[in-house]
């Protein structure tokens, strides 16, 4: 038996892919997370109200999603309903998270694959007609920076936010700061669209070169939803297309164990989940498969173009990346809408009384539904669970890895394209290993 090991780069955290081959037959294709920090153990005994400051440190890329999920879990346990201003600022936080993350994934992680280089820093092609930047590298960093600026504005600190607290937020957003942020986003929007157009073209060229969009078998799509519009401050988890049908389940975070099977793995520090034996797919493609409109003009134009070109739902793997681009544009447009409204009035929070009990917090993180589950005793965390979006995708990643392994391994040879294909498969899911293992 031959074992092929592929170290991974341009993803968040430490992971590798191991493929076992016997006489040209692919025996296994595994995705191994190789780090562990043990947050579900190390937060034990921490004062419950400090969780929103502790848990962003699970991951510096997804910190905002953890920050908001922690606050929601505590509010669920304490029976608190925050005021509208707090909800609006939390939505801004999650949009900043989406913008920062999708820009990082699209440009820092996967654009180099489209351009056949080792890093974004090598994509120094000049860009015309943009005031803010003169190269693809510069423009890409510029757009993702707007995301961290938005997190900084809505969350106080720009990587590990502090402003969302139980009962609300610590402060509003001053009118001049909101206007400056809006202007920054307004400038970033055409740059983001230009980059997405470039990316779209490069993706079509890649498809042309390799002859496939990757694993296109149906899967069970999963996203947190609320109301009619896309809403990352989700109330329920929705499963779609699991056994060929449309919506197959909608459930609250606290009921996740009755719908999802969560299993540990003995070869990875990350576990995996499934839905009644079906492979789950979360993240951008799951959402774009569910949405018919986004209600912002440029993002809707891209969404319609996407559905017209590839169908709805579509299962082709590399379309995850394009779907991320649509969301990038949506995040900018939606944040601009919100920043028009006054955000500096006084009604930032409601009083509350902490109490012991159990709470669940849900948000739609860039990678899919994120659940925090806490049990509180004597004001301290007695037990904590983090249900991570990347973990929902692990079986889908391994299925797609098997597809490329079988495509590029024959009894005669291993096509060296396999190494690049493995990278493309994993990055399409944009896994976050720090989160997955926590």
């Amino acid at each position, binding site marked *: 038996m031959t074992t092929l090991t592929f170290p991974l780069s*341009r993803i968040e955290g430490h992971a590798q892919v191991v493929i076992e081959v016997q006489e040209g037959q692919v025996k296994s294709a595994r995705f191994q997370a*190789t780090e562990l920090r043990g947050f579900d153990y190390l937060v034990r*005994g*921490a*004062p419950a109200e400090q969780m929103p400051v502790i848990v*962003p440190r699970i991951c510096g890329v997804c910190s905002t999603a953890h920050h908001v999920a922690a606050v929601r879990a505590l509010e669920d346990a304490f029976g608190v309903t925050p005021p509208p201003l707090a909800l609006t600022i939390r939505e801004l936080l999650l949009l900043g998270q989406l913008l920062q993350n999708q820009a990082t994934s699209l440009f820092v992680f996967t654009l180099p694959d489209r351009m056949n280089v080792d890093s974004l820093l090598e994509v120094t092609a000049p860009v015309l007609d943009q005031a803010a930047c003169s190269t693809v590298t510069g423009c890409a960093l*510029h757009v993702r920076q707007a995301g961290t600026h938005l997190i900084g504005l809505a969350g106080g600190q720009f990587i590990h936010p502090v402003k969302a607290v139980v009962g609300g937020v610590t402060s509003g957003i001053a009118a001049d700061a909101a206007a400056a942020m809006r202007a920054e986003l307004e400038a970033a929007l055409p740059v983001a669209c230009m980059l997405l157009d470039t990316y779209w073209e490069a993706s079509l060229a890649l498809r042309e070169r390799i002859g496939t969009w990757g694993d296109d078998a149906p899967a069970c799509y999963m996203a947190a939803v609320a109301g009619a519009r896309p809403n990352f401050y989700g109330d329920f988890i929705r499963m779609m297309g699991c056994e060929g049908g449309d919506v197959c389940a909608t459930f609250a975070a606290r009921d996740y164990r009755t719908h999802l099977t969560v299993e540990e793995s003995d070869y990875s520090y990350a576990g995996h989940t499934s839905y009644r034996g079906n492979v789950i797919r979360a993240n951008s493609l799951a959402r774009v498969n569910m949405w018919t409109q986004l209600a912002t003009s440029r993002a809707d134009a891209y969404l319609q173009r996407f559905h017209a070109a590839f169908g709805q739902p579509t299962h082709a793997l590399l379309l995850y990346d394009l779907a991320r681009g649509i969301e990038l544009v949506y995040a900018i447009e939606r944040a601009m809408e919100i920043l028009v409204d006054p955000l500096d009035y006084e009604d930032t929070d409601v009083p509350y009384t902490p109490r012991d009990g159990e709470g669940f917090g849900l948000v739609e993180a860039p990678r899919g539904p994120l659940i925090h589950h806490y049990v509180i005793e004597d004001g301290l965390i007695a037990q904590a669970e983090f249900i991570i979006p990347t973990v929902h995708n692990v079986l889908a990643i391994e299925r797609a890895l098997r597809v490329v392994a079988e495509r590029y391994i024959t009894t005669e040879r291993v096509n060296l394209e396999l190494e690049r294909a493995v990278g493309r498969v994993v990055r399409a899911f944009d896994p976050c290993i720090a989160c997955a293992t926590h």
Partner: protein
Amino acid sequence: MKQFAVLQLSGCAGCEVSLLNAEEWVERYQLVYMPLVVSAYDVPAVDVLLVSGGVRTDEDLYKLRKAVKQAQQVVAVGTCAISGGVANLGNRDDVRALFLAREERYHVPHLLPKSHPVDAMVGVDLYLPGCPPTPELFMAALSDPAAYQASKTVCGECGRKKVREMRPEHLLGFQQGRVLPDICLINQGYLCIGSSTRGGCRAPCTRAGHPCVGCRGPSDAFIEKESAAWLASIQKVFAAMTDIPPDEVEAALRSPHLALFLFQFADYAGTSRPKEKVL
């Protein structure tokens, strides 16, 4: 052009995300190794090696020891690499016993008995604390650390006013209650430790209304002393500015498992950290 590498050990990548925000380096320095951004599998010879995260697995330790041989200068970046950071909460004996017993796996790096700061394992030339350090601090570390100017403490950068007539009688806890704009958080009864936390971050948390949790570590006045001196100085500030009973402050500072100071209590391994080496 100065070449640098970024080695990420067990951490959250927040330091790397902050570095990406400091886009000026793109034109001035050449990044040759940083798995988050560049596909390259080994650290080549470099002028500067930035190390983030704690030493948590045998693989972390192996990579660290291999990488430092390639570097002229080693910079420990972020709280995890310097003083343990949040991973420190996992160094409590009861917690260690829990996850070392439950998390054995095949074919993946093994966990060390505890998380270690970088300088417990290799020599460090410069410390860049913060969770994460701001882009401005990254640029200062890469260009000319000695020339970097900042206030000595977070207090000096916060901009909130201290008010003599507001003397709270009890701690409000960690973050309860509506925060008044522009007024010192200690005057409002919050357990803020910005008075002795190292400046240079520009106080984003306290400006937004959240107490400083000390992620940059002690200021120059305390960094070469034992942690008890740091705790005593915080208590002195509360005694001077509030009517909160000293016992209450003491209890809060030593709150369950020191969670508030989750950033600062790693195994210092007997190494001293002279203030000249800390940005």
